[in-house]
Structure formats: structure tokens, C-alpha cells
């Protein structure tokens, strides 16, 4: 009599999943019952959530600690400006196309940076982003070092009125945030997630058990570049202006994102959420205090790294064993007798 096994993916997540769906619905209706300032902030949080989840997928799961994701935000932003400004593409259609442009460029970039490991990879990606910035700063057609503005007419193509437009921006951002969340969660629960985690833990060993490490990493990198580029397009559609400095800003598009992920808990899906809320709470509370705001933000980063190295979620889940987005697989032995009863229950005629 052979023992039977099944994989348990965690039940806590299912209840939470339902709650999350309700929350998503509530968020979607947000612009109908709060003022436009809050909507705008919520939209910003949504796209930062997307950036944070994407970076977390790269660094926390695939072990690709990139300090150069701003390259794709900037490339996406510039692609959008070219598509809308020069080629007359509708802005909302231009967003995914901006992602595609970023993804296309990420392929050759990957071939270069994938030769690097660890800290070299981190700095290498940073330099690549810098090169993108410098090259764009030398293209007069893209505005050179001074950048370019999107004319109001282009944006008005989305909607003429400010209120409607702000709502559409918000929904786009929310959709981006949720789509990225779903993508990352789905990817991690799939076999690719398994391979990524294995690669992060030991690359030679994962090769020795049949994982195509290069393709898996490449796929992840390109998918992340696509999403980051699309989010970049969306961001600069709202900012209306892009310049090499703003598009490829290390601080805005990577460091803040790293802050969120690491403070919240890298290598978890829940962590970036917590980091997101902490960052925005601090920003809202302190933004008017000039340098002090930044000093306090710095202190918070230092404090959390000293006292909660695995981030806040790491601390919570170690303490309470909580997992809202289960990506783990548990092997459960089903004794033959019990399996029979399960089968009976599943049989409609039984």
C-alpha cells in the first residue's frame, strides 16, 4: 500500500483573498467618495506598490539586486512622450506600448548585466541606468538635457475635465498596482517562482537539477522591465514633464522603492505593502519640515535595519506565523484510508 501525498498551499490565504477582493472593489470606488487630493495620493501609492512589488520580485525572489530600475521607469516615460507627443498615439494605449519599449531594451541590457554577480550586478545596473540617462540627455529630439513637456491637449485626450481625468489616472494606477500584484503572486505560486527561489539560493545547484537559470532570470527581468516601463509611462503621463534627471532619478524610482521593500520585509509579498504605508505616512506627516523630513526618513531606515533586519513583515510572520499571500508549498501525507474518505466526499453520488 503506497502512501499518497498532496501539496498544501495554505488556507489562511483564501479567507484573506476574499477580503482582498472586497478591498480592491472598495478601492476602485474610492474617487466617488473622497476628494481628489486623496485620490491622487492613493493613485501614487498604487503605482509605487507596483514598483515595489516588481523590485521585490527581482531582488527578493530572483536574487537580482538591481539599483538600476529607474532606467525602465525613465525609458517607459520617454517612450510614452514620443508615442503621444510625436506619433499621436492615444495616451492610454501608449502605456502598454511604453512597457514594450522598455522590455525590448531590457533584452540587450540583460545580456550585459547578467554577467555580473552580487554587488557588481547592483552597481552595473546603476551604471546602465546612468548611461541611458546620459544618452537621452544628448538626443535633442527628446529634449536633450532639459527634457520635454506633454502639451495639455494630449492629456486632455484622456478626458477634458479635471475630475474625470484624475479618476481615470487613479484607476489606471490602481489597475497597474493590482495587476502587478496579481502577476507577482501568480508567478511566485507557479513553477517559475519555485525556480527563481532556487536560483537565488544556489545557482549551480539549480542548474544541476535542470533549471535553465539564464532563461528563468531573463524572463523575470524582461517581464519586470515591461511592467516597470508601463508604470513609468503612466507616472509621467501624470507628471506631464520628463527630463533625464526626473525620468532616471535614482532616488525617486529606486531608492524609495528599496526603502519600502526592505523596511516592509524583502522576499515577501506582504512586506512592500507595509513599507509603502510607512513611507507615505512619513511623507505626509513630515513633508513640510524641509530637511528634517529627510533626516527623519533616514533615521527610520537606519532604525528598522538595526532592529528588524527582516523587515516588519519578517518580524510579524516570525512571531505570529502569519502569511497572507502563501507562496510556500507544504507536503502533506494523505493516508490511504483518509484519501478514500476524501474521494467519497468528492464523489457527487456518494
Amino acid at each position: 500500500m503506497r502512501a499518497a501525498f498532496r501539496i498544501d498551499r495554505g488556507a489562511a490565504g483564501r479567507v484573506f483573498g476574499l477580503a482582498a477582493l472586497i478591498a480592491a472593489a472598495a478601492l476602485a470606488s474610492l474617487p466617488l467618495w473622497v476628494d481628489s487630493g486623496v485620490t491622487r495620493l492613493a493613485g501614487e501609492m498604487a503605482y509605487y506598490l507596483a514598483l515595489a512589488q516588481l523590485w521585490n520580485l527581482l531582488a527578493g525572489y530572483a536574487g537580482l539586486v538591481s539599483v538600476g530600475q529607474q532606467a525602465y521607469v525613465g525609458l517607459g516615460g520617454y517612450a510614452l512622450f514620443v508615442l503621444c507627443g510625436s506619433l499621436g498615439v492615444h495616451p492610454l494605449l501608449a502605456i502598454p506600448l511604453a512597457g514594450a519599449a522598455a522590455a525590448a531594451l531590457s533584452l540587450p541590457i540583460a545580456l550585459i548585466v547578467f554577467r555580473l554577480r552580487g554587488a557588481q550586478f547592483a552597481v552595473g545596473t546603476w551604471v546602465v541606468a546612468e548611461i541611458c540617462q546620459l544618452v537621452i540627455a544628448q538626443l535633442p529630439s527628446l529634449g536633450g538635457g532639459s527634457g520635454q513637456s506633454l502639451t495639455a491637449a494630449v492629456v486632455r485626450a484622456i478626458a477634458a475635465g479635471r475630475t474625470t481625468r484624475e479618476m481615470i489616472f487613479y484607476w489606471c494606477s490602481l489597475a497597474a498596482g493590482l495587476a502587478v500584484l496579481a502577476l507577482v503572486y501568480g508567478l511566485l505560486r507557479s513553477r517559475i517562482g519555485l525556480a527563481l527561489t532556487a536560483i537565488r539560493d544556489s545557482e549551480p545547484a539549480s542548474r544541476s537539477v535542470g533549471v535553465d537559470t539564464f532563461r528563468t532570470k531573463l524572463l523575470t527581468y524582461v517581464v519586470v522591465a515591461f511592467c516597470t516601463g508601463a508604470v513609468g509611462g503612466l507616472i509621467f503621463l501624470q507628471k506631464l514633464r520628463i527630463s533625464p534627471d526626473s525620468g532616471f532619478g535614482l532616488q525617486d524610482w529606486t531608492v524609495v522603492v528599496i526603502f519600502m521593500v526592505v523596511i516592509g520585509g524583502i522576499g515577501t509579498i506582504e512586506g512592500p505593502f507595509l513599507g509603502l504605508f510607512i513611507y507615505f505616512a512619513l511623507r505626509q506627516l513630515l513633508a513640510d519640515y524641509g530637511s528634517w523630513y529627510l533626516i527623519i526618513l533616514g533615521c527610520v531606515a537606519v532604525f528598522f535595519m538595526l532592529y528588524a533586519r527582516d523587515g516588519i513583515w519578517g518580524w510579524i510572520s516570525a512571531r505570529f506565523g502569519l502569511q497572507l499571500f502563501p507562496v510556500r508549498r507544504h507536503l502533506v501525507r494523505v493516508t490511504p484510508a483518509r484519501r478514500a474518505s476524501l474521494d467519497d466526499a468528492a464523489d457527487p453520488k456518494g
Partner: protein
Amino acid sequence: MTGPLLELVEVSKRYGALTVADRLSLAVGDGEALGVIGPNGAGKSTMFNLITGDVRADAGAIRFAGGDVTALAPHLRCRRGIGRSYQIPHPFAKMTVFENLLVAAIYGARRGERESAARCGEVLDLTGLAAKANIPAGTLTLLERKRLELARALATEPRLLLLDEIGGGLTEHETRALVETIRAIRAAGTAIVWIEHIVHALLSVVDRLVVINFGRKLAEGEPQAVMAEPRVREVYMGIPTQ
């Protein structure tokens, strides 16, 4: 298919001035169990690395299951049926023991997830890791990690299993259990190449023994006969010839 399962033809590998594989030729038949011994630093692990593709040969050819794999990437060799354990274990430390095996089953053996669960469960039972299935591999002891190496290699459903010192540090009792396990694996039709310094364990399993020294074959043949050779006794066992 005719011919051996694995064939090394005049394979060479140098690290600077040091030759670690010196026109090494070797054949392993389908379902055969081959033992490999040799002094420390003889090039045994390197030979495994050459077979799996972790290290590229400078010269020579490696054929497996009728195809030339000399230029093939490691993961493709694994999918063709070469499974290995590392002498110094490389667990996926943050994944659970079961997940370690699952990766191997899904990617190495190209199985579906559900099917893999059953296979991994069996392998865990076979290797005595069942109780640790759902804990992170990083918390295993050294010997458990070695067992995990074996289990993970098995989960890829290899036709050829390369074992690098998985018996070191076992108690007699544990050694006996390991020998039984390996016999069982073999009985299921998997060919085995086993590097081991615990000679008596090795001898109780293998059909043939190869002794490697300075990247070259020093002796090869029926295990007891090989062990009786004075050269081997001197070089490997440290028993001087009178």
C-alpha cells in the same frame, strides 16, 4: 540502444599548471554501479563536474545515452538524465526540504506539480528525510544536507546518478541503511557512479571500481581485485608495499 550509457573519451582539464583530468576515458553501462576512489585531490570531483557540465573540458568528448553532451549546458544534461550530488552540499537554504525536491522533480524530471508531490514524498521516505519535509533546508545538519543532496538528485529521476561522498560521517548503522537505499535505487534501473572514501560501503554496492590518481586512471576492474593491487594499497590506503 547499444553502447555504454556514459562515455568519457580522452577528457582533459587543466587548472593553470595543474592537470586534474589527463586524457581520462571511462565508460558506464546502463544500470551499472561504478565505484570511484582515489587520494584527495586526485580529480574525482572534477570528473563529476566535467560530466555534469559545471566545468567545461579543455579537450575530449563526453557522450551520454547515445548523444554528445560535451558542449551541453548543465541543466540540459540534467534533463537528459544525469543527476548529481555535490560533495560540499548546496541546499536551497531558504526553501523547505520538500520544495528543494520539488524543483528537481519539476525541472529535472519535467513532471507536473501534483505528480511530483507523490514522487518527492517517496524519495523523502526513501532517504529518511520525511520528518523534515516542511522545514527550511538551511537548518539541516551537515549529514542531513548530504542526504538532501541525494534526495534532490533522485527527484530528477536520473538515468545516471553521480554521488560524491554522501556516506562520510555516517554511523555503521546509517551506512548500512545508505547502502540499502543505493541498492534499491540501482534495482530500479538507475546507473550509479559513487565517489566514496568509506571503502567497505562502496565495495558492498558497486560492480566495478576505478581508482583515480593525478587525473588519470590508476586501476580499474573488479572491486576486490582492484583493492588488492599493491599500487592502490599504497597510494590510497597508505599500506606500503613490502
